[in-house]
């Protein structure tokens, strides 16, 4: 993969220096006493969530079906608003940001790729965010070529995204978000539909993203994948944080 190797060497130039992204280790996204329920229904999907995410490292959110993992990530990017508690992004309330402002800081890969693919061709899908943010056409083309090559989507360059297979759509959704080079990434079930080889590629890419000083949160049921990529594991159960591996270094307590 020559294209990828070249890009890996040159990628640093696309990424703002860590100092301009924000101080590593400082709270980038903070949830305090967050609760949520759909249309006032009881019981609440989430309650009393207190979590802090720094713009570094890879965190995995795990838990059984229906425990509120996807809802939690949707709250973290502002698609949903908390019923109680407060979420802050870079020290400011998330409610002060528009969805687009959040989108420029946090890249979000939906659980279902069909929900985030909206362009007429695969190529356009990857370059959409960059083009609309006013990137130079040459930069857009280079980055699109790299991600097409990296996720082996080049043969589908001119195809309609919704006509691809599930696994291809998943790769495209991840590529489209990664292409925007956001400072923080949230991926909801990114390995669903990926074969072992593509899972490995994603793993490599996530490590590389983290090495460049960007934070990553993945929601996953894939224990093997999580154990290989995540440095911090948060477990949800019945809408509450049951376990956070970062507690270990903090008096080793459990909720």
């Amino acid at each position, binding site marked *: 993969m020559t294209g990828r190797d070249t890009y890996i060497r040159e990628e640093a130039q696309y990424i703002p220096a860590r100092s301009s992204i924000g101080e590593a280790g400082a709270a980038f996204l903070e949830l305090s006493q967050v609760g949520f329920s759909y249309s006032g229904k009881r019981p609440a999907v989430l309650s009393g969530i207190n979590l802090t995410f720094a713009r570094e490292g890879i965190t995995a959110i795990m838990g059984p079906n229906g425990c509120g993992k996807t809802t939690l990530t949707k709250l973290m990017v502002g698609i949903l608003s908390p019923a109680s508690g407060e979420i802050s992004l870079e020290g400011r309330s998330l409610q002060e940001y*528009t969805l*687009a402002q*959040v*989108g*420029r800081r946090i890249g979000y890969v939906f659980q279902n790729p069909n929900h985030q*693919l909206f362009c007429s061709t695969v190529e356009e899908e990857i370059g959409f965010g960059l083009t609309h*943010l006013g990137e130079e056409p040459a930069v857009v083309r280079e980055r699109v070529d790299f991600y097409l090559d990296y996720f082996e989507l080049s043969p589908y360059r001119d195809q309609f995204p919704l006509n691809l297979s599930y696994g291809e759509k998943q790769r495209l959704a991840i590529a489209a978000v990664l292409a925007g080079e956001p400072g923080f990434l949230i991926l909801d079930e990114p390995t669903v539909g990926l074969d072992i080889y593509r899972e490995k590629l994603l793993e490599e890419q996530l490590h590389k993203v983290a090495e460049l000083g960007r934070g990553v949160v993945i929601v996953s049921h894939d224990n093997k994948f999580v154990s290989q990529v995540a440095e911090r594991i948060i477990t949800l159960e019945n809408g509450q944080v049951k376990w956070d591996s970062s507690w270990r270094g903090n008096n080793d307590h459990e909720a």
Partner: protein
Amino acid sequence: MTMKLDPRTKLVMVLCITTLAIVYNTPGALFLLLAATIGLLLLFRINLIRVMGYLKPYFMLLLVLFLAQCIFTPGGEVLLAIGSVRLLGTRGLLMGTTVVLRLLIVIAAAVLLTTSNSRDFISGLVQWKVPYEVAFMVSVTIRFLPIFRDEFINVVTAVQLRGVELKKVPWGQKIDLFRRLFFPVVYGAIVKAQQLSVAMEARGFRAYPRRTYLRQLYLTRWDYGLILVFPGLTLLLMGLHMRLV
């Protein structure tokens, strides 16, 4: 009382209202019809504020439609122009208002249908000897209205999460963007319809004539009354309208 109306009665009422919406072509008459439809919704104890929130994503499309009609309909007196370039004429304004009011009436009338279960629509229509396939298509169409809405919300959310500030995009680009987004939304709904038909067939679904129904619908006096009054009133109003025109 009103909530217990037969779904067929509601369907007749909606057909009458939408027929009038198509026949009327002046903003005044359409506005009165919209007010009457909203009155009907209140009678059905439908929470209008909740419906408005539900329909919020469509308002942008209505605005785009209104502007497109205003700008591209020729004729009438010029209301706004830059130099010799005409931007808005009286006829365009009239057309824009008419189209938007007409759509609002159709949407408001369609809300009436949401007060009945889609299964009741099928069994009601089948009891009226409408072929099962046709009755099923009507019910699936009703079922797909919220899917269109969800698809549109998903697309708009996804676009914004890629960093595009939709509110700040210039109007020319915004119209182009919505035009481009419209295709995937429609295509997505078609794909879902295809998947639905495959899933149904895979479970052995067929519209056999021997199909039986546990629940039988019965028309009450209110139903009979409204089924007679609504078409009668519609014909009368159409007659009056033709005379005036």
